[in-house]
């Protein structure tokens, strides 16, 4: 048996991360997702949901965030959506990772991590929602 898809909605609050991770753990263990893509899945959810909660609703509104995970053969497709302020996370250039400890800016790594570890990323604004689609490979492409 596999769970092909799970589609979750949550209010834009950080205390929702715990039940969210419980549901994703259930998905991961039922589908026997290997450790590396399971880690990347968690990381992507962590970074994008936390960003939406922390930066998307500066007006103090309570928003609604969507997290959809779909298993499609060898690919895990994550779709994040939120009704916060329009923001394309892939527009800004990647952070500067060179330079000494003293020169490194603290922060600004979340989007970079996920983008680098994903097979593909995409952003669109649709029906008043930010929609981010991230695809992860289940198996490391060889070669």
């Amino acid at each position, binding site marked *: 048996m596999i769970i092909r898809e799970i589609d979750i909605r949550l209010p834009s609050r950080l205390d929702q991360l715990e039940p969210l991770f419980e549901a994703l753990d259930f998905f991961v263990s039922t589908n026997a997702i290997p450790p590396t893509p399971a880690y990347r899945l968690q990381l992507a959810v962590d970074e994008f949901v936390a960003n939406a909660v922390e930066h998307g609703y500066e007006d103090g509104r309570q928003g609604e965030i969507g997290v959809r995970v779909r298993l499609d053969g060898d690919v895990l497709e994550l779709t994040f959506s939120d009704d916060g302020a329009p923001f394309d996370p892939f527009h800004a250039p990647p952070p500067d990772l060179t330079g000494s*400890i003293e020169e490194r800016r*603290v922060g600004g*790594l979340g989007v970079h991590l996920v983008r680098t570890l994903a097979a593909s990323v995409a952003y669109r604004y649709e029906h008043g929602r930010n929609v981010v689609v991230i695809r992860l490979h289940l198996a490391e492409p060889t070669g």
Partner: protein
Amino acid sequence: MHIDRIVEKDVLITAVRGRLDSSSSPKLDETLAVIPEGSAAIVLDFAELTYISSAGLRVVLKATKLARSNGLQLVICGLVPQVHEVFDVSGFTALIPIHESRASALAALT
């Protein structure tokens, strides 16, 4: 997440178990803000760290900056493969010495 602090001679070891994410990293941040008098070097033992997000990396970078500005060396040991990958991708492995185990970290410091 669980934090243990051990002092071995003049090396301050901070061992972290569990998940280091946006909800748990403030606690590590507080712990690492205090460097006891007389410490000569700092080891972050992450052998039992199963997960780190950018919030955790932020705390690690802050602690490294603090150590350097106090003239102390900070090294990390025991990264599981997935955590190691996150350190690689964020460029941290080029900035902070990473050791296999606590023993090799301590050996390198003395």
